[in-house]
């Protein structure tokens, strides 16, 4: 059954405790379930504001932290029950690219260095020529090996650095790449090339992506499927075209209407109230969006709304 999925999260919860004397619990990820299908490569977007738990989910999937509750299944098996050999194999097939290409390099080594560490580990297992492996990976991200291999990080642009990091992620021939805000530090002109690269890797090499972002316009450009997080909970999930053209959850609606349209003829007309003043109080029970929701009812305060399936979408809201 779940073998149909490449990756599946089942009721994943992670709570962090902060403070020394007065301990405070923060539920970073609250009962999150979603899956990335196996049969066809796709780009699954995990969208949310800062503090919504996006990156915590990425760290759980990569096995950096353990969830308090729930399972992460890779090809139907819980990754936290893997033995070390299985886990190494898992980490080969599931790669990561992070936000900041500027701080992901050791400044004193040429680009080759970061690639050869990974390439050596791979070729030891597969008996392949290191140079050839590196060249292939660089070519598939649109870089000319002879031009970049001997360069130092400061000689490359942000976009080129991010491409090198994608090349590094490609070396172990992954099935899935966790891309955590890979374009948010890049300029608009370079951003387009990385987004196009993700699309090309999906269609040409059949690699799936979990694209984590706060930026719905880039999400819309590359994504096939989207899950929207709010304070650690999934509020809406479905095919991206439908969710973006017709958001159902009040939070998704607010989020969509707040994305600035790059066209002065399409300026916002109505004024929005300023919700930040209330937002930080937080409610303890019921729907987490209650304070900011224009459609709130008494019912919403009692229990948190479950994720209901409506057509090909999932929505956690009592309105539906």
């Amino acid at each position, binding site marked *: 059954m779940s073998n149909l999925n490449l990756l599946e999260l089942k009721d994943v919860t992670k709570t962090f405790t902060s403070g020394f004397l007065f301990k405070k619990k923060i539920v970073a990820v609250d009962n999150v379930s979603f899956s990335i299908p196996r049969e066809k490569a796709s780009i699954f977007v995990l969208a949310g*504001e*800062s503090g919504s738990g996006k990156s915590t989910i990425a760290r759980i999937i990569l096995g950096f932290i353990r969830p308090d509750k729930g399972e992460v299944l890779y090809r139907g098996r819980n990754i936290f029950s893997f033995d070390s050999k299985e886990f190494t194999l898992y980490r080969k097939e599931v790669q990561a690219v992070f936000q900041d290409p500027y701080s992901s390099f050791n400044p004193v080594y040429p680009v080759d260095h970061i690639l050869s560490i990974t390439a050596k580990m791979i070729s030891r297992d597969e008996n392949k020529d290191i140079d050839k492996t590196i060249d292939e990976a660089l070519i598939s991200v649109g870089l000319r090996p002879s031009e970049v291999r001997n360069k130092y990080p400061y000689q490359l*642009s*942000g976009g*080129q650095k991010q491409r090198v990091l994608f090349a590094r992620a490609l070396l172990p021939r992954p099935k899935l790449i966790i891309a955590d805000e890979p374009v948010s530090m890049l*300029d*608009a*002109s*370079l*951003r*387009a*090339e990385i*987004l*196009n690269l993700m699309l090309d890797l999906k269609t040409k090499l059949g690699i799936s992506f979990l694209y984590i972002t*706060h930026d*719905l*316009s*880039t999400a*819309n*450009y590359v994504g096939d499927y989207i899950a929207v997080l709010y304070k650690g909970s999934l509020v809406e999930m479905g095919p991206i075209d439908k969710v*973006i*053209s017709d958001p159902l959850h009040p939070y998704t609606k*607010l*989020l*969509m*209407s*707040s*994305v*600035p*349209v*790059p*066209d*002065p*003829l*399409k*300026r*916002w007309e109505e*004024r*929005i109230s*300023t*919700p*930040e*003043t209330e*937002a*930080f109080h937080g409610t303890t029970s019921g729907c987490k969006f209650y304070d900011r929701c224009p459609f709130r009812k008494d019912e919403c305060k009692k229990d948190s709304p479950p994720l209901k399936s409506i057509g090909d979408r999932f929505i956690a809201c009592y309105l539906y």
Partner: protein
Amino acid sequence: MRPLLKVEELTTIYETGNQRIKAVNNVNLEVFEGEIFGIAGESACGKTTLANSILKMIKPPGKIVSGKIIFEGIDLLSLSDDELRKIRWQKIAYIPQASMNALNPVLRIFDQLFDVVKAHKKDASKEEVLKRAKELFASVGLPANVLKMYPHELSGGMRQRVIIAMSLILNPRLLIADEPTTALDVVVQRGIIQLLKEINKKFGTTILLITHDMAVHAQLVDRLAIMYAGKIVEIGSVFDVFKKPLHPYTELLIDSIPRIGEKKRLTGIMGLPPDLGNPPPGCVFHPRCPFKVSGKCEVVEPSLKQVSKNRWVACHLIKGEESE
């Protein structure tokens, strides 16, 4: 409309070792009274150096080598530090990038606000400032009890509102805001864009907005200047610039922004911005320009020409009405 601020042939350089980087290269622009003027461009194009130059806040190894900054008829670059202090904050307020993270963590918001006023008006009374602060906080959408809070009790969006209220406390005529919405969540960003628009309307404050985000410019500014490699390549009304960008860089920049609901393949811009320590001859954009005319663009530097009322472009492909 008359210009409130006029930047004339401004050049600011950074000198390190044997490198001489022209971060702002012969920039001319006018900001009219009451408008919101935007400066767009990618990282390292000189936007922030331009803002710092306007207030003469360039520190070594940076240096303003030539030009004039005319504000209310006076060249700010000719003023002494003492004279400039009377202009800064009282006439021209500046919100540097990420200043919302620069609030003093151990002082209550009101005390920080009072310090600002004290620094410029020694005889200000606490009651007076409190009254003004309460009015201002209401205008920026903050409850009055925030005045008694510490910065850590506030969200990012609220801290940015505090900074905006602080910048307005002495009633400046010009507000320079450098990336005021960057690093905020979209919903909060929308609130700040709305707030800046309201301030401009309500108090008549002229705003110079600096951001790399073209969508923010599209939503907020009246006129827009596009900067590339230290130079202004195009100036026009935001409607004209988006409708029909004239400079190839502007056109490619607008084409590289993803739009919701469209899946047309984005083009991006080939190549890299030039090394400002060793800029290419001719037009600074020619190495990346798909429309370059060989024999001309790599030899002759195009000047910023007026092509119609309120429209200036620096490109050989565009014929000007008059040359400067």
